[in-house]
């Protein structure tokens, strides 16, 4: 399944090839685009009348984003690839800026754009270097890199990983996600989180297969970064109160899981553990596919919530399960899936990654088993924390009683719009279930992709380990089906028992308290507090209190904000120090002609001195 197309370009011929890997991502991109378009058609109803917003431009840039992503997947010419990459940035930036009249949206747009430029700069250096040391702009040349100049090859690969990691949202270059996602319209967040960041994953996979394996140390570093990303992502997700910020950070977490898959695959390749390699790649691909489905579903749901309540602060939502039944159901399924719980697709990917990790602990050198153990413990912690995050998210937003008027009385939106949104959400959620129960059906295709990665990676066939993984999956699937059966049986029993018995309705038992419980409910903040106090250093708390002073207190309040440690320690200081350095030179343009002449004179003297000095 590989088609090539040769174009003549200023940079020589550009080969566009659709091999298995490209096809896999192209399918995700195409499906995601279709779903987003469908959903947008409904979501943008509310904006259509408003002259401020141009839906035409929205669809223009959506199409641009789609096509550029597709070009990214199939182009095998470095310059052409970079071009498509930048087009992708342009389109997504313009999409993020859709609600441009809001100040925070503009700020987020600029931040996102700048972050993407940083990433692109890394790629540009890497490709420029590779193009020189391989003598060609074509990816095919990359194969000779490692043999030709190993040190350079490793640095180039590191640069590439940083560049692609920025797009994929790997720590510490993930800080754009929690800014861009809340600012963007829901469908845009959905396609960015569900599809666009996957192009970063694609880049890593493509490069590591084209360049070859850079060795154990590099791979181990990838694993460490991946684990750090997943952990930091999920911890911050627990610390956020904005529905879409939570989802954004959970995207960071899932990128970490995917990268972990890639990392252990690289470790396996480096140590000749083909099972680990196969399992890692398979896990990465599966999780890429699955995250695409449930994250889109979640963002679609968030969009529904926003369009009905115009509220994204969890503390002001609640009880939507009674008013938005459909959305609540889809959101629940997606939440179960994103926690990696069995019977839904989220589990399959993590299961494959776990398989790789356990085989890593069970074999190879001490280093490998330590790396694998790190991944094992980290992934387990991430899973448990994800459960916390999403029970919290779902419980606070959808369950209990409404915490505000906005949540109690929904705005009504056009019937057609709602239908379209629901259709899109239902479709993608159906995929969540289908991929969970029917993982057996997609496994062969994915194994094909993994096999290609193996052969391209010059490690020979991976068919044997893939077969073992397949059998494990089929057994796992049987157990999952058994689980479904048992649950069904129990539900049946329950119904039988309750038949003809009294099922009374009463207020929630609040230990005798009879008042209304809306304001007395457990809050999102307090729900996460015990966990966050355990991981305080990674999500430091900043608390603003207006205490009660006067005998007749007015407006006493407390405001907790959790900030991102990596941003506080790494990216934040970096940015501010650069700005500081620049600000040191503001005096240059003083407006005084004499200063200007002085600059010239000094410079002249310096140059003359250089000449006499014999430069």
């Amino acid at each position, binding site marked *: 399944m590989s088609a090539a197309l040769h174009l003549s370009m200023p940079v020589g011929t550009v080969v566009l090839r659709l091999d298995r890997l490209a096809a896999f991502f192209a399918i995700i991109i195409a499906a995601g685009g279709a779903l987003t378009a469908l959903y947008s058609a409904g979501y943008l109803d509310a904006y259509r009348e408003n002259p401020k917003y141009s839906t035409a431009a929205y669809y223009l840039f959506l199409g641009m984003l789609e096509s550029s992503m597709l070009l990214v997947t199939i182009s095998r010419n470095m310059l052409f690839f970079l071009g498509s990459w930048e*087009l992708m940035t342009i389109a997504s930036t313009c999409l993020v800026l859709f609600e441009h009249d809001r100040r925070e949206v503009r700020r987020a*747009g600029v931040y996102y754009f700048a972050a993407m430029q940083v990433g692109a700069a890394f790629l540009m250096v890497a490709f420029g270097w590779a193009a020189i040391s391989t003598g060609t702009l074509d990816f095919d040349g990359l194969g000779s890199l490692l043999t030709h100049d190993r040190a350079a090859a490793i640095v180039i690969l590191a640069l590439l990983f940083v560049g692609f990691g920025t797009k994929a949202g790997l720590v510490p270059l993930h800080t754009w996600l929690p800014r861009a996602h809340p600012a963007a319209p829901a469908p845009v967040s959905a396609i960015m989180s569900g599809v666009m960041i996957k192009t970063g994953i694609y880049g890593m996979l493509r490069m590591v297969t084209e360049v070859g394996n850079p060795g154990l140390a590099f791979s181990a570093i990838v694993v460490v970064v991946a684990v750090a990303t997943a952990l930091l992502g999920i911890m911050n997700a627990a610390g956020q109160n904005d529905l879409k910020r939570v989802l954004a950070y959970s995207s960071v977490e899932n990128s970490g899981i995917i990268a972990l898959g890639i990392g252990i695959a690289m470790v396996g390749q480096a140590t000749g553990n083909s099972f680990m390699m196969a399992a890692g790649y398979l896990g990465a691909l599966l999780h890429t596919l699955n995250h695409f489905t449930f994250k889109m579903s979640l963002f679609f749901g968030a969009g529904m919530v926003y369009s009905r309540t115009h509220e994204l602060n969890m503390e002001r939502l609640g009880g939507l399960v009674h008013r938005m039944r459909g959305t609540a159901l889809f959101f629940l399924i997606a939440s179960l899936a994103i926690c990696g719980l069995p019977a839904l697709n989220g589990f399959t990917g993590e299961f494959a990654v776990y398989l790789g990790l356990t085989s890593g602990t069970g074999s190879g050198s001490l280093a490998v088993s330590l790396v694998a153990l790190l991944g094992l413990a980290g992934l387990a912690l991430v899973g448990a924390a994800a459960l916390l995050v999403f029970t919290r998210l779902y419980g606070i937003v959808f369950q209990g009683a409404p915490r505000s008027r906005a949540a109690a009385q929904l705005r009504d939106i056009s019937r057609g719009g709602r239908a379209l949104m629901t259709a899109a959400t239902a479709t993608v959620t159906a995929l969540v279930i289908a991929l969970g129960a029917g993982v057996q059906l997609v496994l062969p295709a994915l194994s094909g992709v993994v096999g290609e990665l193996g052969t391209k990676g010059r490690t020979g066939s991976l068919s044997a380990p893939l077969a073992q993984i397949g059998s494990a999956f089929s057994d796992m699937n049987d157990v999952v089906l058994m689980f479904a059966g048992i649950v069904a049986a129990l539900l049946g029993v329950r119904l039988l028992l309750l038949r003809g018995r009294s099922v009374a309705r009463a207020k929630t038992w609040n230990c005798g308290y009879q008042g209304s419980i809306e304001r007395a409910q457990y809050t999102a903040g307090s729900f996460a507090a015990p966990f966050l106090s355990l991981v305080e250093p990674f999500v430091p708390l900043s608390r603003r209190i207006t205490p009660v002073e006067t005998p007749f207190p007015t407006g006493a309040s407390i405001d907790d904000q959790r900030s991102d440690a990596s941003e506080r320690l790494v990216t934040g200081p970096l940015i501010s120090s650069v700005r500081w350095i620049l600000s040191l*030179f503001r005096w240059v343009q003083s407006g005084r002609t004499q200063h*200007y002449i002085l600059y010239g004179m000094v410079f002249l003297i310096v140059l003359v001195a250089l000449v006499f000095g014999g430069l």
Partner: protein
Amino acid sequence: MLALVLIAPAVAGALAILLRSRIAGRVLLISTSVLYLTAAAVWIGNNSAAVPEAVSAYFAVDGIGRLFFGIMAVVFAASAVYSLAYLRAHPMAERQEALYSGMMILFADAMAGVLTSNHLALLWVFVEATTLTSAVLIYTERSKASLEAAWKYIFICSVGIALAFVGIILITIGSGSIGTLSLTVLYRRSAEMNPFWLKLAFAFILIGFGTKTGLAPVHAWLPDAHSEAPSPVSAILSGALLNTAFLGLVRVNEILIRAHLALFSNTLLRIVGFLSLFIAAVYMFSARNYKRMLAYSSIENMGILCIGVTLGPAGIFAAMIQAAAQSFAKASLFLTSGTILARYGTRRIDGVRGLLRADAATGWLWLVSLFAAMGLPPFPTFLGKFLIVRAFFESGVGWMAAPFLLIIVLVIAGMAKVGFSMLFGDAPQIVHERRDAAAYVPQILLVLLLVSLGVTLPNWALAAFHAATGFAG
């Protein structure tokens, strides 16, 4: 052809000033731009004729001359057309307007002289001439600010150019028995020259022409002039004049390279190049005036060119692409900024909001041209950027790509911050509502030209760039 290109506009300019008539001025202006466009088309068209077209010992059009002449012609034509809109928006006394048209023509003619002169001192004469003509243009609006800008411009540049002349004298000293300043001869016999005087000369010439090129640390006049001049003039200053002065630098640099002094000249050029990039980054964030912001971006671009030409043939080729693309983008931006200025009546960035709603066409032009200036696809600036980065590695100084791209990313971020803040948000009540085709068509054509260059670099363009790269044969 060459004689026509040089003499006819001189006459036309003089006529325009003497006739003191609106119509005559505009007609002459447009016809001059037509003449230049045709000349450029002819020269770039038969680029295959590698041997430079020479009319005398003093004038010749080699590859790089052709390319830069083409750039100048296009930018000048765009500004000429836009001038019609400008003159309608800013009605002024008839003889003033005639002076404007005449000076525009003479300004272009002076640049044409620089681009086509084959004699170093003659080139100097024309560079100084560009200063004198454009100084008058900068003062067109007769405001205090424009007067200050014009003064700083003419004074700083005159001093700088004077130093360049010192450099030329030093070359004469160093050229010893060669006994002429004809460039073709100097290229040929550069090996015979005295390296010491050559280096000293280059130091002076770098400062002299560097002042006109707007290279840090002698860039100071540039933001003032660009922001206070009428927008069509700013467009020419940024899109054509800087390149023209830069050409002088390149020619002298070529002499040094051929005299095996490349190490020296490259070091100096890289120093000023990175300094310029840095200064641009410093002010890109703190600029409060959008025309000044564009001016700093021009400084950045000149820095890029300086660095590019030090990176061997590949670098020079990339620099040529960069020069053409950036000039068109910058011209389009400055012309558009003129429309913005006319709509909002302020140069302050925070005075401009909701451009996309106030005037959609201008808004989109602004956005697209910004992307072009930032070096994003599908514009040729992106190609140039990548080729320069690659050239770093080709000439063995790959580590320089890191600071280079770092600063460029900073500049891009600054441009985005400013550009977006102007485009979006709620539009205030706009006073001027008159729409004028001449205020949009030139930029649209420029953008189309850019896209066509970027998407499919056509063969004639490719040939032009190659010819420019190996201009000295």
